[in-house]
């Protein structure tokens, strides 16, 4: 699926440019996009190294285990095929926590670690059930305090920059719940199909 989407975005863009005389912009966009990706990756290095370092210390200090124990009843239900004391749980939870507090930077390294652990469990290059659940929750956003948006609102002199926190939390709640439900529906459809 991602192969199709990836190729189609470029194909449609180039073909469209042929007929609309925007080839110049395509040429420019091509290398700008590549440039941006490199800049983004370099920016990611500092974030990844820093947070993975801190996470390693937290792991060895037993903090991840405490976090896992705290939220066990909740996450074991969300991720039934991950063994209860598996390190993947600790990383999943720290990713969720970082997301909740709007620490987008810190969430990515922990999410990648969680994926790594889940891949070790499934031993395959196919997305496992728990990986899909994990991504569904992540893509629906878990932010409680959208700091970036608040900053933009302050910049444009909003009378109440934080008044959207409430609606954001509500909307997040709806989209995350929807993500979990949709994920479950797809999962059970898959299970039924495999049985037949």
């Amino acid at each position, binding site marked *: 699926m991602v192969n199709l989407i990836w190729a189609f975005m470029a194909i449609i863009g180039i073909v469209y440019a042929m007929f609309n005389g925007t080839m110049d*912009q395509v040429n420019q966009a091509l290398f700008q996009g590549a440039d941006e990706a490199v800049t983004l990756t370099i920016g990611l*290095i500092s974030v990844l190294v820093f947070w993975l370092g801190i996470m390693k210390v937290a792991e060895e200090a037993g903090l991840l285990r405490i976090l896992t124990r705290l939220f066990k009843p909740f996450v074991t239900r969300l991720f039934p095929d991950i063994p209860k004391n598996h390190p993947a749980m600790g990383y999943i939870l720290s990713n969720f926590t970082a997301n909740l507090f709007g620490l987008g930077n810190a969430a990515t390294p922990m999410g990648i670690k969680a994926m790594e652990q889940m891949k070790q469990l499934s031993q395959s290059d196919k997305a496992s059930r728990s990986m899909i659940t994990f991504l569904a929750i992540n893509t629906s956003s878990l932010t409680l305090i959208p700091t970036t948006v608040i900053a933009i609102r302050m910049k444009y002199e909003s009378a109440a920059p934080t008044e959207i926190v409430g609606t954001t939390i509500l909307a997040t709640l709806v989209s995350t719940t929807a993500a979990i439900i949709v994920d479950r529906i797809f999962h059970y459809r898959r299970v039924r199909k495999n049985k037949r």
Partner: protein
Amino acid sequence: MTLITTLSTWIIPCIILLVLVVATWKKVPTYESFVEGGKEGVSMAVSLLPFLLGMMVSIAILRGSGALEAFIEWISPFLMAIGVPADIVPLALVRPISGTAALGMTTELIQSHGPDSFIGRLASTMQGSTDTTLYILTVYFGAVGIRRMGDALKVGLIADFIGIIASIIIVSIVFL
């Protein structure tokens, strides 16, 4: 307001403080562990580069050519028919594809309509309550080499759609 600003500046240093205090207490070799954990970060970022670059170039072509805009214009009437405000349509469509583009659009909407307008509030809420599905999929699956994504993209996009509709309904109820 001050509480939230204070909270967001205090939280990271406080987490680090907590980790370091507990680790030192438990006699973990803190600096050595930090370096060991951090080492992984370099290779992780480098292995991510081709995935990110490929995706970003493809998105850049689509945007640069004007095809994305044309598509948004073409699909807008359908979305408006189900009650999605016209000004918000481009943001709703771009949000899952590109985080930077969405942030730019949100800023633009807030700037031109004012942060305390209906559109301003709606854009703010949508920006905060959704995430860049394609980016997250690329980064998380790319980093660990998952090639077959299963239903992940479909689930993510459906949830995005529900989230956008929910934002519109919630903002209408709260602020209108």
